[in-house]
């Protein structure tokens, strides 16, 4: 079936560097994408979202890029901090906005 997946299971980044977390999706009908952060022992927390009619959206220290041509989503974190260490999930929502499909997740490790 259609699914959302991530290229890298673990990403190690030096504190202060920028991080890029990638996500591939296969459902071309997906209309809305979300990035979540999950710290150990906690539920996922919303970071940023983007609709399919956009190719870039910026938040505080985070930027999401959407390339619909190759069905690719990325999350860029500027000046990565130790508090950014977590598992990051991308999620997609097809039209209807009721069902969310989560990817497997990428663990981000920040090296002090």
């Amino acid at each position, binding site marked *: 079936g259609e699914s*959302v997946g991530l290229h890298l299971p673990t990403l190690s980044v030096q504190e202060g560097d920028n991080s890029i977390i990638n996500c591939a999706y296969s459902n071309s009908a997906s209309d*809305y994408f*979300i990035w979540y952060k999950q710290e150990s*022992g*906690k*539920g*996922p*927390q*919303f970071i940023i*979202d983007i609709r399919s009619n956009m190719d870039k959206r910026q938040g505080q220290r985070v930027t999401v890029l959407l390339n619909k041509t190759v069905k690719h989503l990325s999350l860029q974190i500027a000046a990565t901090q130790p508090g950014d260490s977590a598992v990051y*999930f991308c999620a997609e*929502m097809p039209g209807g*906005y*009721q*069902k*969310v*499909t*989560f*990817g*497997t*997740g990428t663990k981000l490790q920040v090296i002090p």
Partner: protein
Amino acid sequence: NAGVTQTPKFRILKIGQSMTLQCAQDMNHNYMYWYRQDPGMGLKLIYYSVGAGITDKGEVPNGYNVSRSTTEDFPLRLELAAPSQTSVYFCASSPSGATYEQYFGPGTRLTVT
């Protein structure tokens, strides 16, 4: 606001036992969801609800049941627990409207032995 609350935090069940995982939200959100997360994996949707009295199956509904008698509460029922249901269960809610950001509870860690 307390947000999304879940009880219990931890539970150990024997095979064949039943239990109800409780979920409540005080944000007046119409949409509520139940997910399970197996170790090292992403979240899989079990059931969801778009409002009181309305529920629908997600990706992995077998072995579970839900009800939504009020806007606030969305309990998940496990009947005849099996080891395959060992997982962390997350409840989430979201407002209807232009944004579909989901707010998650802290999770219930369930072990079936």
